[in-house]
């Protein structure tokens, strides 16, 4: 009971040693990176670090499903797979490989990749078909290539109860995205736009909200 009733207060006193450990680990990491950067394979190592980041992000995408409630009907009663759409220039590359067979709520997860909005607009029919597919997906990752058209994408999937996720600054404010990845001390964190989630008809569980670095809430 005490745990539930107690508002989690920022008490760090006891966690000092852990924090210290992490800091040491980070320093070691940074030193290692500096050494590596100074060497020859700078590009490869950067790619490796980036791919690790996206592996975490891929895992987070899966995990978000479990802390978000879609309205009835969006997730069918059958065993149809859940769809994660990725629109724009895909940064994940092979990040989904380790978790591709993972089931969520007993369902398979399918990754569907879509061209960027600029490209889609070239053909009306293609555009409509793609948008329809996008609207079917439960989760939509909007890549940085779409930074300028976030609002338009959000507008296109309006009423389709899609959880939009991005990893660029101003994703929440400028376009009405729901969850945005941010990096904090080399760790993947996220922020949530509660207003946008509400607009999309999604309920975000409090545990997830608690973990968010920043939550935009509706002003009453």
């Amino acid at each position, binding site marked *: *009971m*005490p*745990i*539930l009733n*107690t508002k*989690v*207060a*920022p*008490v*760090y006193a*006891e*966690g000092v*040693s*852990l924090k210290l450990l*992490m800091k040491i680990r980070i320093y070691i990491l940074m030193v290692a990176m500096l050494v590596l950067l100074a060497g020859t394979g700078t590009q490869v190592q950067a790619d490796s670090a980036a791919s690790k980041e996206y592996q*975490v992000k891929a895992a*987070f995408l899966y*995990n978000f499903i*479990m*802390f978000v409630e879609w309205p009835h009907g969006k997730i069918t009663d059958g065993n149809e797979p859940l769809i994660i759409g990725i629109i724009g220039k895909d940064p994940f590359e092979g990040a989904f490989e380790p978790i591709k067979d993972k089931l*969520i*709520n007993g369902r398979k997860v399918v990754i569907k990749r879509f061209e960027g909005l600029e490209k889609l607009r070239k053909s009306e029919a293609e555009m409509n078909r793609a948008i329809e597919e996008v609207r079917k997906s439960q989760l939509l990752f909007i890549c940085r290539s779409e930074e300028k058209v976030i609002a338009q994408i959000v507008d296109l999937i309006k009423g389709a109860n899609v959880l939009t996720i991005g990893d660029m600054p101003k994703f929440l404010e400028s376009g009405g995205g729901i969850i945005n990845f941010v990096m904090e001390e080399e*760790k*993947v*964190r*996220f922020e949530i736009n509660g207003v946008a989630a509400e607009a999309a008809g999604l309920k975000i*569980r409090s*545990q*997830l909200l*608690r*973990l968010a670095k920043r939550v935009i809430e509706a002003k009453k």
Partner: protein
Amino acid sequence: MAIKYKLMTIIMLSCTIGLILAGGAFIGWEQRVFRTSMTQNLSTQAKMIADNCKASLAFQDTQDAEKILQALHVDSSITIGCVYTSNEELFAAYYRDYPEVKLQLTNLRRQGFDFKAGSLTVSSPIILDKEIIGAVFLRSDLTPMYTMLKRSSQIIIAVLFISLLAAFLVSSKLQTVISRPILNLAQLAKTVSERKDYTTRALKQSNDEVGLLIDAFNEMLGQIQKRDSELFDAKEGLARKVDERTAELSKTNEQMTVEIAERKQAELKQQSLNAELEEANNELKNFVYIASHDMREPLRKITSFGTMLEKSLSGKLVDDDAENLRFMVDGATRMTKMIEGLLVYSRVSTKANPAEIVDLNEIVQQLQQLELSIVLEEKQATIEVPKPLPNVEVDPVQIRQLMQNFIANGIKYQAKGNLPRITITSKPAADGMIRVEVTDNGIGIAPENQGSVFAMFKRLHSRNEYEGTGIGLAVCKKIVERHGGKVGIESEPGKGATFWFTVPAVSSKPTAVDKEVESSV
């Protein structure tokens, strides 16, 4: 210890034991319940933390997990709280006291608990969408349980003391129900035994066992009272009887005293009579001796002058006168012999010599050569002594007379033409005596006459058959009796006779004669 205290002790002891047992059981039960509830509580907490940490672990937010664990500080008994990842790496931790204490990992996938080393450790897996993504471990010390047990013990001890106090008060009141009648009875018993007053009775107050006891006691008192009075009566009767008996006894005593006096008088009389008799006897003996001694002289004259007359008048007297004269001389001669016999008999009593050691063989030899030599030759008789005879301690003159009489007797009573043969043997008898047997081959004596042969003047045969005075054997009997011996006869008619007598053997003590000999030497 008084019954009152015994009763109270029993009650208090029962009470104490009951309370201690109940208290112990209660504490044991409480501990069990507390452990169960503690485990449940801690498990619930672990489950809640596991649920709360789901998102933290899913999104790798250590800070969030730590925040959640921090909340454990509210419960001061929880010492450690840890969240591990599915790779068994420590994800987040909370330590109440010292961070260095590490939890030993048990199976992550198991919901469980472990009481060890004064602490309780519970684990709960963190499950996200049916997948175990980590585990929560909580460790609590058992302080609350110990605190609770301590408090319970204190309460129980307090209850114990209060109960004992209550039991003491109640039992000290209630024990009188049992003890009072018994105490009253005891007091009464003491009074009865001290004052010997069996008329008092105990008051019965209840119908239980104590009531029965009082009834029995009263009955016993009644019986004692009855016995007592009976005993008193008996005692009086006894005293009376004793008095009666004493009176009788003193009366008898008096009579006896009188009788004893009479007897004494009679005895005195007897003594004087005896003395008179002895005197008379002695006078008689003297008279016999003197008479016979003095009668010998005139008799000898009659005999000798009669014989001279017979010689001088032979052939001158007519037949009848000669025969009458011979009868007269014969009578006088026989009378002389009788008087000599009487003299010998009386001499046995009057002229006694002191006892000496006498060799019987010598006596027999001397008799053969002197006194009996003529008779032996005349009758052609023989005397046999198969074994040497022993020495005896007797009057030497009298023993010679004795042997002479017995041998002469054996030679005298023979059938016509039979050669007399006398055998003398001896053997030891009882009381230090020697038994001497003189056996002949004569005519013997019929059993009916054997008792009277030793009587004075007793003769079994006529004067014509065997000559004799009837004094010889009487003298023998007298001599043996004077020596403290016995005399007897064993015989069958026609088969000879054995005359036996006992005389003292040689005593070990030296005799007067020996002493004299010694002094003369």
